[in-house]
């Protein structure tokens, strides 16, 4: 209903608004652009390329960020050294790494991956570190009296106990990575959704630009609802963190 109204407003503005239709296409034109993109494969192909970069960069960030965050929380000298470095670097938007990455890796996928990883890795690391640090010491003491192994402390106590924060970090990391990827693709030649945006601008094809934007939103919504929210809801239910809503 709400989205129906929004579409109606959009259609009216594009028809009677200040900009001509080439610059502010109507919903129908955008829909046609999506259709065209899917049929000739340009949209699907660039979606696939972007998702592939995303998955590689993100998995890498998770694989490094999780153990790194745990180590920072557990080892004091690590936190004093690497921990402050991570905090400092986190204030830097990851796209700022692009110039360096281009010089180091050249104009290719590696440069974009590097930017994606710098976006996700630090956010994940910091969230995991905070989560593990906030695990009540009582859980560890209890686990020790039950004879947990040194590895089990991590896999069976610290990680599950920090799971709500780890999930927040995973989600934050995903959205940072996604932003970094889009900015990277806008600036660097090479397939991908960001590049489709750029080529839409070059061809003055605004319906293509908006079509790509919609695809980006849809992908974001999909991963959030289908993956992260689903896992999060399960954890919340188990922990009893169902939250309070105003009536």
């Amino acid at each position, binding site marked *: 209903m709400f989205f129906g109204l929004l579409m109606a407003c959009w259609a009216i503005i594009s028809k009677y608004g200040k900009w001509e239709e080439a610059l502010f296409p109507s919903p129908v034109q955008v829909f046609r652009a999506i259709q065209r993109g899917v049929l000739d494969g340009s949209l699907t192909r660039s979606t696939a390329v972007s998702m592939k970069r995303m998955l590689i960069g993100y998995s890498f960030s998770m694989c490094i960020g999780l153990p790194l965050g745990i180590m920072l929380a557990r080892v004091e000298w690590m936190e004093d050294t690497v921990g402050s470095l991570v905090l400092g670097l986190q204030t830097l938007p990851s796209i700022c790494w692009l110039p360096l990455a281009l010089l180091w890796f050249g104009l290719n996928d590696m440069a974009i991956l590097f930017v994606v990883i710098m976006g996700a890795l630090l956010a994940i690391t910091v969230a995991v570190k905070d989560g593990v640090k906030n695990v*009540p010491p*009582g*859980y560890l*003491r*209890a*686990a*020790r*009296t*039950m*004879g*947990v*192994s040194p590895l*089990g402390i991590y896999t*069976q*106590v610290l990680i*599950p*106990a920090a*799971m709500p924060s780890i999930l927040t970090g995973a989600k934050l990391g995903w959205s940072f990575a996604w932003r970094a990827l889009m900015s990277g693709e806008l600036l660097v030649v090479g397939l991908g959704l960001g590049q489709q945006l750029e080529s839409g601008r070059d061809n003055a094809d605004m319906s293509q630009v908006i079509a790509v934007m919609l695809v980006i939103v849809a992908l974001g919504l999909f991963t959030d609802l289908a993956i992260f929210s689903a896992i999060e809801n399960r*954890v919340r*239910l*188990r*922990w*009893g963190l169902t939250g309070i809503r105003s009536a």
Partner: protein
Amino acid sequence: MAKLSIRGVSRRYSGTDGDVHALDNVSLEIENGEFVVLIGPSGCGKSTLLNLIAGLDPPDSGEIWEDEKRIKGPGRDRSVVFQDGALFPWLTVQKNVEFGLKQMGLSPIERKRRASYYLKLVHLSQFVDSSIHELSGGMRQRVAIARALALEPDALLMDEPFAALDAQTREDLYRVLHEIWDRTRTTIVFVTHNVREAVCLGDRVILLSSRPGRIHAEYPIKLARPRFIDDADVASIARRISDVLKEGLDASRREEYDADWVPAEAGVLRPVDGMLGDHI
């Protein structure tokens, strides 16, 4: 040979305002199957002593032996019930009880069997698949007791397990604990600051003095079981212990207040707006 033998144990820890001498040269023998209650004013080191027996902290000096072996760290032979239960909110009731069994390397079937048995012992069979947050405080402590018992320990260490519960729930849990002890005859070391609770539960009550924590007195409790918290005998022994405790308590309370604070004297509460004896 005593089950647990504590030999000349001292322990200091540093707080924000200097060193606290929590335990000073404490020696104690606990027999197999005995129910010993440690009692004392807050900050007397009774929980510290329990943690030392559990092996969670090392003593600064002295030794603690269990049977023929010296305690050097935590172990499944001495399981602990913590004041807040320390249950794992990411696991179901059943999985919480199975946690220690899993560490022992038992098969899933054997784990399940044992967890069910001990959950039945604490009357929680209907809640095996519940989440921890769905349980009341009393139910959580029962899960914690089942989790500790499932390890079939040689000694059960309980650190003020009922302190955060309301009176009614607490009395129910005394019964549950009596029942369990009657069946298993596990050695129990129970820490509390509630004198009646101590007398109601223990074979022997050890009174610790505060700062430094030393053994102040010992009271064997030779009342028949089951005992109830309101029994006249329980009350009269508790009264005797309270009187002794009070002297020490006042000292430790003074430490926690400013210098000009005076503990309340027994006496009459005066009405604020008049004199005693008005309107006679």
